């Protein structure tokens, strides 16, 4: 739209900054109510997120997970699919990679090969899981929001089941419910116990490749057209349903790949492998304005807040939920500025009419 004619009434334009300011003050009060000086809380947050090599290692490992799931969400939303299933696709990718890694992978395999096989397995599993939602939408008309949300729950139950039940993926050597360790050939090169792993290096090429696909290929043209105006896209011969099916699969593959990476970084399947990161990825993608390259910095910021808040909870006694509150506010502020998702035709229509017949 070259006519960014936002018809917020003048009251609304002032309301948001005031509201956000008000909540910020409220948050500072909450922090003080916890008996901590706000400045100390923020110092704890900062040093926990980026104050040491261990902090950075954890932050970057979190960033990698958020990045892959964030790319998956950004891609889906661009195509007009409200896929909120990155969480489930991530988990299923991790489960599948754990199954292949612990049961099938020969010990003697060189690590680049073992890691690649598991990444491919994770991606394939994520793609398949996402395709279930895609098929439900395409052939039965089920809303993808409902389908992906339900599949998330199923994936989570599947995870708990496989790591708790003997003969499946549970480590028989412990009384805890956790998976067997992966063989050495599936170990990601790390950096001396900091949590940092080689998978972080995959985020930049992944974002670049997606950016090129979205903006510089025929597939990207049909994807964006299908998201912005499916009726026109269809009338011009773009097979919108098929395009969306592919996007379901591709975004599932991205989230599943992230799941395999997180699994290999952890060395074994556990019940709490980056829980809820698939939902946080929605915020990451929205904050990045659904642009593949902007997902990188967006994921980094959210990862910094995430690791920082955990550290703050430990050292300053501030509940980490305070940070989630801030994140939620940031997202609301972004949305209130008029970030328009593809598919919300009403907004497009009025803006176009205002400028269109000018």
């Amino acid at each position, binding site marked *: *739209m070259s006519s960014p004619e936002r018809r917020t*009434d003048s009251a609304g334009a002032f309301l948001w900054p005031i509201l956000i300011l008000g909540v910020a003050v409220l948050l500072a009060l909450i922090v003080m109510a916890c008996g901590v000086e706000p400045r100390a809380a923020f110092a704890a947050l900062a040093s926990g997120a980026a104050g040491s090599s261990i902090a950075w290692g954890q932050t970057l490992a979190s960033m990698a997970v958020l990045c892959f799931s964030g790319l998956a969400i950004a891609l889906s939303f661009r195509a007009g699919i409200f896929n909120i299933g990155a969480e489930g696709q991530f988990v299923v990718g991790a489960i599948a990679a754990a199954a292949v890694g612990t049961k099938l992978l020969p010990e003697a395999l060189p690590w680049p090969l073992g890691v690649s096989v598991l990444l491919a397995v994770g991606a394939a599993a994520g793609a398949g899981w996402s395709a279930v939602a895609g098929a439900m939408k395409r052939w039965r008309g089920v809303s993808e929001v409902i389908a992906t949300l339900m599949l998330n729950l199923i994936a989570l139950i599947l995870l708990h089941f496989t790591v708790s039940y003997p003969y499946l993926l549970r480590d028989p050597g412990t009384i805890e419910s956790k998976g067997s360790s992966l063989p050495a050939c599936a170990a990601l090169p790390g950096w001396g116990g900091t949590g940092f792993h080689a998978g972080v290096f995959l985020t930049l090429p992944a974002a670049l490749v997606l950016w090129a696909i979205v903006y510089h290929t*025929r597939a990207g043209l049909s994807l964006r057209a299908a998201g912005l*105006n499916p009726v026109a896209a269809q009338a011009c*011969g773009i097979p919108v349903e098929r395009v969306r099916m592919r996007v379901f699969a591709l975004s599932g593959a991205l989230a599943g790949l992230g799941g395999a990476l997180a699994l290999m970084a952890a060395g074994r399947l556990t019940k709490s492998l980056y829980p809820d990161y698939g939902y946080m990825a929605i915020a990451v993608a929205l904050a990045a304005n659904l642009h593949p390259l902007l997902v990188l910095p967006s994921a980094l910021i959210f990862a910094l807040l995430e690791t920082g808040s955990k550290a703050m909870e430990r050292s300053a006694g501030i509940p980490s939920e305070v940070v989630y509150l801030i994140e939620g506010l940031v997202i609301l502020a972004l949305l209130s500025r008029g970030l328009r998702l593809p598919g919300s035709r009403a907004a*497009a229509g009025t803006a*176009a009419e205002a400028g269109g*017949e000018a």
Partner: protein
Amino acid sequence: MPDLASSIPALACRGVSKSFGSNRALDAAELSVAAGSIHALVGENGAGKSTLMNIVSGLLRPDAGSVEVFGAAARFASPLDAVAAGVGMVHQHFLLAEAFTVAENVALGRRASSLGLRFDSKRYEAEVEKLSEETGLSVDPRARVEDLSVGLRQRVEILKALARGARILLLDEPTAVLAPPEVQALFTTLERLRAAGRTIVLITHKLDEVFALASDVTVLRRGKTVFAGPLTGFTAEDLARKMVGEAREINAERPVSGGEIILEAKALSVPAASGTGLHDAAFALCTGEILGIAGVEGNGQDELAGAIAGTLRPAPGAQLRLAGADLLAMNIRRRAEAGIAYIPSDRQREGLVLEFSLAENLILREAFARPNPFGRGPLIDRHRVSAMAGPKLADYEVRPPDPVLPAGSLSGGNQQKVVIARELSRHPKVILACNPTRGLDVAAAASVHARLLDAARKDRAAVLLISSDLDEVLRLSDRVAVLYNGRLKEAGVRGVGKEEIGRAMVGA
């Protein structure tokens, strides 16, 4: 209003300017509408008429200049403010809740009762009945809007505005969707409202309407007021010259051709998508020929177009052949490759991706051809796209001809030119044109007509022109058929009487 001094204009715009990005839609435009008059606001597409009306009705705010309503400065922050000041807008595309009754629609957006809890349908039905009686706009207040014809829906829109106390009525292209008898009824209504003291601003492209109704006229050209004054002593040519700035004419004269059959339909039935559906249609279309299909919208037009374009699936047993090949076995992309061009009725919904650049809109069909015309393998090379788009936009006189602009920033006429550039530059065998000049001004419509005639005459393309504009159909077509209630009836070759077809269109 009778108690107001007649020297105070009902509506006055002074030096109103408005820009969208670098596009200056209004440049110190002036408008002065005398109370109790019917005032025509005319101008080409992109002249700024709609922008000015959107400012007056509170949808947009001006960058500069002022608006006065009955002498009082009006600074509308929202359409509600405009309504409160007595300005009512009847949009070209109606804003009605179809599942609601007429009375419910009239009540919509107003306080239902003192507490806002209970909906007093009796009260609103009585109100509608009273208004109907006063104005001659008779509608059953208990009828559901979805059951009403387009003409009646328009009455509901007008009633809605009047019920909210509109003293100034703005009507945007009110006849665009109406059949001839409905147009007559609207004219009578407007005349009656004026006689009752209301002020009416009529935005239109059709000059005969201006002369039939208005006493005064304001002409906008490229955002500026180029003429304002009474209509007396004016001819249609004078006015057209003021609008366009230069004389442009189209030459519809062409020989009736005798080409071979290129598109043939038999037993074509399509389940209803929006109107009545299409029942058992049959026709044959020859190369170089223009077959016009007249009819009031919703009588099977969408279904006929959809079946040929490939967006709707006909009932089993239908036959549709393009030069002997089975069109129904092809998907949309294959149909385009086989030589079908489609100019949809609603360019913003079906023709363009408004957020896309002009260049991207232009390649929506060709980008998927084999071999890839715009790069290697799956890639699209932006330089190659721009190199193609620039000359094409210039060739089809799209203004501004800048390939990187989003399609949504262009005026309606220029958006339509982009669709036509995309579809006709492929040199198609069959052109399916649905209401191709809807909402366009005289000059833009003439340029579209010239393009279609050129395609038929020079390129020997067959044109299927489906239009609710009877003049357009009669002017361009070699043969005319009428769609009424889902049935297609051949009405004869060119020269057939307008009255006769007009009657067939409304089933009389």
